């Protein structure tokens, strides 16, 4: 008679217990549905409870192909997912607690009367080409990103840096004019490259010091990485031997490939597919609580009608957030008026009910703006094709304004034209988008991206003078380490934002991923800075 295997007594360490508790609190505070909590707990438990195995090939399906191999220039999420494993970054955002922690750096210390950030690096780190990683390489990387000729979108992220000094092989000093809280979270995006590579990195195969080495990129077919056996940090070393990323543009094909077992993991797919996949026993769904990506509408204040605050407020009252989340995000979202959700320390509870769905208020605000029953009103929504959620929100907003007497047009263009009209010609009235970074430090949330002034990519055309006191509060929050003072400053920032409403924030959305049951240890990252080092294959 076959002996039944002995049942393992489940044990849990204090560290794991705390992680589970923190995870549950995180998801619950995020307003996550029970399914989200269950998914996260399952993923976290899988990552920590079983004994990881080494070996095998993990095949990951992504929605589009990467468009460059340049670590500092390419900004697609699909590239972030891949390159996070190739390179080391000085810091990382914990995918469960969302806290920013040191990664390559051993420590960050503000010195010199809080005008310098001293970074300590570990010794014995080598790049994939065998070169030793030193403070010179980190300086080279940061200086290159600051150079406008390199063309890095991260230039603004590290804008407050004045100078980078190498103290010794493992220490460097970053000079600023004050404490700059955006820097350490910004370093999560900065991939450290050997200085011998130069800056023309798009023409070369990536060389990093991460747990995975780059093998090849066949455009429109795959990117292959292989495990770095000499990775310096054993605790973060990879388990699977190879990772193959395949771009599959058609959503139904991606899901079919997963169901057929042709791929192991489908990274980031439409939330509307979540209920269907959750019902399928052959796959596991991992959902990130709604916290990072937020649906907003950019309003062009350079031209009528959104130069009037009443019209901007009308836009704030025009969306049925609950209906949108329930019907089009499979319930995997959270209505919000702030870039932050309640789990975030900077969240201001007063923002909760600042704006909600109210067509009567929209009608009244149109009247106050000088457009009674929409007479004389002219605007449209600019929508990029291939982003159905943007079109749905635009359509819902269109319906609300139609009920108030004016039916704005929806102009659908391709993504390149959309980006050019938003950023370059500013030829738009209103455009829906889902900018990221709601889960990171507010100093970074407010210093980068399209929504928040003052920054060079401020698409709405809002000047710092438009909202008196707003920039001062931003600086207060960005330049002190006192959490209480920061919380007060950012509460004021949120209050001023909602009073002037340069761009309504409607809700946060989850992100969803699905994998075959043999994929273990996968914990999705809210900002696509995905680590696959913990992932292993059970069979």
């Amino acid at each position, binding site marked *: 008679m076959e002996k039944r295997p002995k049942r393992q007594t489940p044990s849990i360490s204090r560290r794991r217990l705390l992680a589970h508790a923190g995870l549950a609190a995180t998801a619950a505070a995020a307003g996550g549905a029970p399914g989200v909590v269950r998914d996260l707990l399952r993923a976290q438990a899988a990552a920590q409870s079983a004994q990881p195995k080494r070996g095998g090939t993990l095949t990951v399906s992504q929605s589009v*192909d990467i468009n460059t191999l340049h670590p500092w*220039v390419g900004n697609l999420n699909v590239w972030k997912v891949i390159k996070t494993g190739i390179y080391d970054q000085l810091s990382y955002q914990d995918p469960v607690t969302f806290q920013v922690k040191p990664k390559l750096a051993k420590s960050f210390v503000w010195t010199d009367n809080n005008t310098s950030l001293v970074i300590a690096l570990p010794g014995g780190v080598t790049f994939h080409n065998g070169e030793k990683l030193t403070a010179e390489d980190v300086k080279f990387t940061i200086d290159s990103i600051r150079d406008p000729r390199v*063309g890095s979108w991260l230039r603004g992220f590290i804008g407050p840096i004045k100078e980078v000094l190498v103290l010794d092989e493992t220490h460097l000093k970053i000079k600023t004019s004050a404490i700059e809280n955006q820097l350490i979270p910004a370093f999560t995006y900065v991939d450290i490259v050997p200085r011998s590579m130069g800056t023309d990195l*798009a023409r070369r195969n990536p060389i990093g010091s991460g747990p995975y080495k780059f093998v090849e990129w066949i455009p429109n077919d795959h990117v292959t990485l292989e495990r770095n056996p000499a990775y310096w940090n054993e605790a973060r070393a990879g388990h699977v031997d190879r990772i193959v990323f*395949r771009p599959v*543009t058609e959503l*139904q094909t991606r899901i079919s490939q997963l169901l057929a077992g042709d791929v192991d993991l489908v990274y980031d797919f439409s939330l509307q597919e979540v209920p269907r996949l959750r019902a399928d026993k052959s796959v596991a769904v991992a959902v990130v609580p709604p916290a990072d990506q937020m649906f907003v509408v950019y309003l062009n204040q350079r031209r009528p009608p959104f130069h009037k605050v009443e019209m901007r407020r009308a836009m704030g009252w025009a969306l049925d957030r609950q209906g949108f989340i329930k019907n089009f995000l499979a319930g995997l979202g959270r209505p919000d008026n702030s870039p932050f959700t309640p789990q975030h320390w900077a969240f201001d509870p007063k923002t909760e009910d600042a704006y909600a769905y109210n067509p009567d208020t929209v009608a009244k605000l149109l009247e106050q703006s000088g457009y009674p029953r929409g007479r004389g009103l002219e605007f449209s929504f600019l929508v990029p094709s291939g982003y159905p959620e943007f079109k749905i929100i635009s359509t819902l907003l269109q319906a609300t304004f139609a009920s108030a007497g004016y039916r704005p047009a929806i102009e659908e263009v391709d993504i390149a034209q959309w980006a050019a009209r938003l950023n*370059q010609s500013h030829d738009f009235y209103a455009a829906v988008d889902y900018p990221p970074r709601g889960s990171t430090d507010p100093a970074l949330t407010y210093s980068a991206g399209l929504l928040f002034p003052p920054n*060079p990519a401020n698409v709405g055309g809002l000047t710092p003078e438009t909202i008196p006191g707003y920039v001062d509060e931003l600086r207060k929050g960005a330049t002190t380490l006192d959490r209480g003072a920061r919380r007060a400053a950012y509460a004021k920032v949120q209050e001023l934002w909602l009073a002037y409403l340069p761009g309504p924030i409607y809700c946060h959305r989850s992100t969803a991923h699905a994998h075959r049951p043999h994929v273990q240890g996968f914990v999705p990252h809210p900002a696509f800075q995905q680590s696959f080092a913990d992932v292993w294959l059970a069979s």
Partner: protein
Amino acid sequence: MARYLIWRGLSVIPTLTGITILVFLVTYFIPGDPARMLAGTEAPPEVVAGLRHQWGLDRPIHVRYGFWMANIARGNLGESYFSHQTVLQLVRRAFPVTFELAMLSLVVALLIAVPSGILSAVRPGSWFDLGATAAGFVGLSVPGFWLGIMLIYLFGVELRWLPAGGFAPLSGGLAQNLRSMLLPAIALGTFASTQLMRYLRAGMLDVLNADYIRTARAKGLAAAMVLVRHAMRNALIPFMTVLGVQMGYLLGGTVITESVFALPGMGRLVLNAILNRDYQVATGIILLIAASFVLLNLAVDLLYPVLDPRVRLGRSTGWE
């Protein structure tokens, strides 16, 4: 005959020149900016301006066209702003996939179209003819992406007979390669077969009612002989024209099939290039596709003398 061949050959030059101008102008005037697409919406303006300068996008249109044509004359179709691979490198990798797909689709299309087209023409108004015509209309009406997804779901997910998309290169074995190409070939070939079948049926019907066929039958030739030697050969002339056009479509129009089945072919390459405003790749590939279209039609026209003695003997065919 020689005059016809020379005239037909030379007509390709102005056509191709016109195509280069058209392709360049179309890509030039499409709103959008590759520098913004690469750097992203969050990049500061000076960063985008720097990339535009690096790539020569801030130069006047005639200078850019001149550079492009000079490079083409040297056999250099350009380099991707994004991947920094040359157009020829990208095409060398993608074209075999599309070519294989087009060929296999053509085989599927011919396997369906030729027997059904001939049988429909031989027995017009029969149940088979009505059924084939109805099936043809259905085949024309069914969207390619829907058929593709249904095939994937049935054979990939439910039955697990074939892979649910993706490409297996020939280097990994012929059997694997064919398994990965079968469903896309069926999806693409089914659509192509409907048009081919209708043309072949119409052509055969015309020929079967011609006097020389009646004469051949009156001479006592066997029905199969009449069909194969006399009817089919003449019906093939208009069919070949359509086949050439279809081949062009199959080579250049596989975007949807390649996207649905995740094949790294020319269709996806050019679609991504257009969406990213990767002008060099987009113009280079569109030019190649247009040139292959023009040359295929030229090849078909040059085949006429082989199939039609009137062309070979220099008699009027309506061309001269």
